[in-house]
């Protein structure tokens, strides 16, 4: 790093703050940016500033969006009676990619993590309570991650709304499609037996 000019050092230091980018990768990216045309670099810089300036959370589901209400919540063709609860926006994106779900979402922006001090007050549960109290929701699909934190979050939400007149469901767990049973871990196998279905 010593041999680089100050502005390049600064660029490398900033890029190295990104997840998964070490100093060497940051130096490689900085060299690419140095060689790129001024127009390309301007586009990159503008997109970085724009994403920070324009993106906010949807008033309803808390998914990052450009508008006050995201394109999913604002689409009247979506099923307005079903909410799929996810931990993070990337989980929402993964479900949307599958194209099988046509209801609405709710992004919690985290999961219950007792060891890290993340409790219910750190999750966006108040907004979910408000949506349910409006009375239109008939089903809540809990699509939190299938690990201890996600499971605990799903149990918490179930406990919170056990008296509400809604159906609460949990996404299925089991063997992945195209997988090979002999490579599947014990816990996933046991879950797949637990959640087996009739043919």
């Amino acid at each position, binding site marked *: 790093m010593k041999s680089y000019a100050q502005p390049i050092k600064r660029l490398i230091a900033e890029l190295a703050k990104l*997840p*998964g980018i*070490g100093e060497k990768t940051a130096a490689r990216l900085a060299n690419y940016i140095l060689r790129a045309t001024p127009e390309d670099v301007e586009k990159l810089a503008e997109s970085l500033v724009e994403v920070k300036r324009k993106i906010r959370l949807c008033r309803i589901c808390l998914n990052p969006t450009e508008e006050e209400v995201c394109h999913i919540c604002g689409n009247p063709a979506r099923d307005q009676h079903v909410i799929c609860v996810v931990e993070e926006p990337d989980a929402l994106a993964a479900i949307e990619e599958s194209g099988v779900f046509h209801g609405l979402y709710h992004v919690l922006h985290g999961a*219950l*993590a*007792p*060891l*890290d*001090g*993340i*409790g*219910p*007050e750190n999750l966006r*549960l108040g907004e979910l309570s408000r949506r349910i109290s409006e009375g239109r929701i008939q089903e809540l699909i809990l699509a939190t991650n299938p*690990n*201890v934190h996600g*499971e*605990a979050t799903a*149990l*918490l939400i179930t*406990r*919170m709304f056990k008296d509400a007149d809604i159906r609460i469901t949990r996404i299925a767990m089991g063997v992945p499609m195209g997988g090979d049973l002999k*490579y*599947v*871990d*014990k*816990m*996933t196998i*046991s879950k797949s037996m637990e959640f087996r279905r009739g043919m």
Partner: protein
Amino acid sequence: MSARETHKTAGFVLRSLQYGESDLIVTFYTREFGKIKGIAKGAKRSRKRFANVFEPFSLTQIIFSRRNRDSLAFIDACDILDHFAAIRMDLEKTLTASYFIDLAEHFSPEGKRNDGVFALLLDFLPLLTRENVSEPIIRFFEMRLLKAAGFEPELAACVRCKTPVANGSPYYFFPKEGGIFCTACARPQRYDQSISAGAVRTLLLGKDMDLEKMKMISMTESLASESRSILCGFISYVLGREVQSLKVLEQVRRYCP
């Protein structure tokens, strides 16, 4: 350059921390080596080698190598011995198990073997799978952990005059003194909260009581509150900080009773 030594041991997963894009730094409480930290390369993306093995409070069999006692271990393999499914299916049990491992982590210096702490986890986590969470189970775990870690509070007699605990008179617990004072020695101020001899006796009972008999113990609300205040206050004092998982446990109980 010293050669890497490979070890195989049973260990509870205490915590895992993401490191870089796909690695995890995992803290275990092991039978032979006490608390150790190791890096599991590629664990985040692993579908075969490390799938589902680094979940908090799971009991695992790990194979790791390291250059010396002070260096970060390299986790070569990890197999689940028990993932305590019954705990994971119950919110209260998950939060309690998290509290237990949080305490075990806080009270264990790295690399110091302590058979008492390992045995405690080996007793209380399976107990949680069989029994519902109760105030006595949590308080007795705290008592036994403090004892195993060398911080057992003096509850059998007044710290100053050494008079054994007797029914009827109230006592005062002073974390700084590490135990209880009788009324005569305590010279209590208005804000000092007294504790009953009953609460003190119950905690003493739970220190060595047979695990299976624990379910027969019940605490009244006031007894539970006194015991909680003594032990949680003492733990915070010893650690010099609040225990995060306890805060979350209490937050959840307030949030949805």
